[in-house]
C-alpha cells in the first residue's frame, strides 16, 4: 500500500500514450458519470458557436478501456457534446468533411485515478446523493492508507465539511448504507438522513439504558422505520431533538424530560418528531430570540448616541417612539410578573 504524505500525495497519474487521433463522434463514449447538471446551457451554446466557426482547437483526453472499441472521455465532455450536437444538425468541416474531435489518447486510469476523477465530477453535480461519494472515499482511504482530512481534501477536491459528512456516513453498517444506494428515489433513504440521525442515535445510546440494551443497529432501524412511515417528516427534524437537548442545558428537570422523550421516540413507532419535541423548543426558542432582540435593541440605540440630538422636532418624535417602547415593555413586565391587566393596557393605548 503506498504511503501518503499530505503535502505530496502519491497518486497514480494519467499516463499519456502519446497518440493524437482525430475521432468521429461514434468512436467516443461519453463520460460514464452522467454530467448533465454540469453544464450551463448558455456557456455550452457559446462553445458550440466557437467550435462551429473554428473547430475543436484543444484536443479532448480519452482512453480505451480493454475490450472496448470506443474511446472513453476523461476530459472534454463539453467539447464532445457540442460536436455531437453539430453533427446532429448536419454541420461539416470547412472542406465539407465530417466534423472530428482531436483527442489525446492516454492509458486507462488506475482505479484510484478514476475515483479521483469521479470525485471532481461529483463535486459539480447537483442533487446527487453523498453515499456513493462516501463509499468511494472509503476505497481511497483504504488504498492510500490515510484518513487525514487535509490529504483527502487535496486529493479529492472535497471540502473538509464534505469529508466529515462522508465519514459520518461510513460510521453506519453496510446494511444501512445500502438503503441510500437504492436506485429507486422513492424508496431510497437520503444520505442526509444518516448524517442528521447520527447525533440523535449517539445521544440515545449515551443516555438511555433501554436503547443501549436494544443495540445501535436496532435503534437505527427504528428510526428508519419511522422515516418510512412518515413519522419523521423531514430529516431536518432530527435537529429539533438535538436542539431540545441543548437548549435546556441549564434546566436539569427539562433536560431529564427531553431524555425520557428521546427514549420514547425510539420505542413508540407512532410518535412524530414535532409532536414529541416542539414543546421543548418552541417556547424556549421564542424567549431566546426575545433576549437576543433586547440586546440588539440596546446596542443599536447606544450606537446612535441619541442624547445629543439638537433638532426639536426630531427630539419630540424620538421621545414619542421611546414612550411607546416603554409602555409596551412595562405591560410586558407586568404580564411576566403576573400583574397583567388588559383593560389598563387598553386605557393607555
Amino acid at each position: 500500500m503506498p504511503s501518503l504524505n499530505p503535502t505530496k500525495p502519491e497518486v497514480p497519474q494519467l499516463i499519456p500514450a502519446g497518440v493524437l487521433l482525430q475521432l468521429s463522434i461514434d468512436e467516443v463514449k461519453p463520460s460514464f458519470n452522467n454530467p448533465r447538471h454540469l453544464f450551463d446551457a448558455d456557456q455550452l451554446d457559446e462553445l458550440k458557436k466557437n467550435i462551429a466557426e473554428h473547430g475543436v482547437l484543444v484536443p479532448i483526453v480519452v482512453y480505451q478501456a480493454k475490450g472496448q472499441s470506443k474511446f472513453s472521455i476523461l476530459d472534454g465532455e463539453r467539447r464532445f457534446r457540442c460536436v455531437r450536437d453539430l453533427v446532429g444538425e448536419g454541420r461539416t468541416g470547412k472542406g465539407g468533411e465530417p466534423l472530428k474531435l482531436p483527442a489525446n489518447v492516454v492509458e486507462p486510469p488506475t482505479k484510484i485515478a478514476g475515483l479521483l476523477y469521479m470525485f471532481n465530477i461529483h463535486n459539480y453535480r447537483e442533487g446527487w446523493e453523498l453515499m456513493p461519494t462516501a463509499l468511494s472515499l472509503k476505497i481511497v482511504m483504504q488504498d492510500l492508507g490515510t484518513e487525514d482530512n487535509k490529504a483527502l481534501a487535496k486529493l479529492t477536491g472535497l471540502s473538509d465539511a464534505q469529508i466529515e459528512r462522508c465519514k459520518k456516513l461510513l460510521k453506519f453498517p453496510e446494511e444501512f448504507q445500502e438503503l441510500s444506494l437504492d436506485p429507486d428515489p422513492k424508496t431510497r433513504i437520503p444520505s442526509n438522513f444518516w448524517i442528521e440521525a447520527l447525533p440523535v442515535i449517539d445521544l440515545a445510546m449515551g443516555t438511555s439504558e433501554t436503547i443501549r440494551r436494544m443495540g445501535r443497529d436496532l435503534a437505527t432501524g427504528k428510526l428508519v422505520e419511522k422515516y418510512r412511515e412518515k413519522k419523521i417528516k423531514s430529516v431536518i427534524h432530527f435537529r429539533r431533538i438535538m436542539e431540545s437537548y441543548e437548549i435546556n442545558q441549564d434546566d436539569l428537570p427539562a433536560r431529564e424530560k427531553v431524555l425520557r422523550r428521546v427514549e420514547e421516540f425510539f420505542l413508540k413507532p407512532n410518535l412524530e418528531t414535532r409532536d414529541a419535541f416542539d414543546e421543548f423548543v418552541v417556547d424556549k426558542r421564542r424567549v431566546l430570540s426575545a433576549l437576543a432582540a433586547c440586546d440588539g435593541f440596546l446596542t443599536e440605540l447606544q450606537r446612535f448616541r441619541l442624547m445629543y440630538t439638537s433638532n426639536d422636532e426630531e427630539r419630540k418624535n424620538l421621545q414619542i417612539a421611546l414612550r411607546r417602547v416603554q409602555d409596551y415593555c412595562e405591560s410586558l413586565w407586568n404580564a411576566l410578573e403576573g400583574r397583567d391587566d388588559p383593560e389598563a393596557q387598553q386605557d393607555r393605548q
Partner: protein
Amino acid sequence: MTRIIRSFMAALRYRDYKPRPLTWLAAKRWVMQFEKNDRRLAERLLDKVIYISESRAREILVQQNAALMKRLVAAGLRPKQFIYVSVHDAGSSSPVMLNLLRDAAGLEKMGCRFVDAHDSMRLIKTMNEVGEGALIYVDDFLGTGNQLCGERDFVANIMVGTFSEFVLAPSICEEAIYEISRRGLEAFTGHVHSKAERPLHENSPLFLQGEKDRMELICKGINRVGPLGYKRLATMVVLYRNAPNTVPAILRGSQNQTPIRGIFPRSTDLPVPRVI
C-alpha cells in the same frame, strides 16, 4: 382445412410459450374470435412473429457471449474480470437469462462474477475487487432500451475502476441499439429487431396502410391505452418466457383474457388462478 393446418403449425412453433402453452385449438380459437374479414390479416400478423424459444435464446446467448469473451481475452482481460449484471428485479427476465447463460456457458467455473444491478453495495465491492474489466448487462429483449439504460446510468454513478460495458441479449430493437450506443455501450445480440420487420409499425412496408389501420382499430378495442404496445413500438419478437410489453394488443389479448383471448398473453394478462 387451411386454417386447421395453420393452427397446427402455430401450436408446433409456439408450444413452449411459458405463460400459457399454445395448442392448435387455442390457436384456431384465437383467429376465429375476429370478424371473418379480419382473420386472414390476423394470421398474416401471426406469421410475422419472431419467436425465440428457450433453446434458441440459450444458443444465441452462448454464441454471442463466446464472441464477446474472445474479444475481451484478446484485449488482455481474464474471465475473473468479467462482471455479469442482471438489470431487473429477481424473477424477471434478466436474471433468468443470466442464469441460463451462466449454466450453459459454464461461467461460474471460469471465475466470472454475477451481480444484480440493484445490489449496489455488492456491485461496488465487486468492481473494487476487480478494478479493471468488463461489465456485461444481460437481458432477454430490449424495446426502447429505457429500462436498461436507466439501470445502467445508476450503475455508472457508482462505478469504481475502469470497465468496458456491453449489453448481451437474444434480441434488441433498433431504437434500443440507438439508446445504448449513445451511452457508448456495445450490443452483442442474435437479432436486431428493425422497424421494417414490424407489420403494424408506421415505418414498416409489410402491411398496407388500410390493413395497419384496421389492425390498430382491433388493438384499440382490446387496449385503448397502448394498442400497439409500449411507446407504439409494435414489436413482433416473442420470447418463450413472456411476450414483451411492446407487442400489439391483439397478440396479448384483453386483461384477464376477457373478452378477447390473446395468443401470447403476458403472465400479468392472465387471470389469477384460484388457489382456495
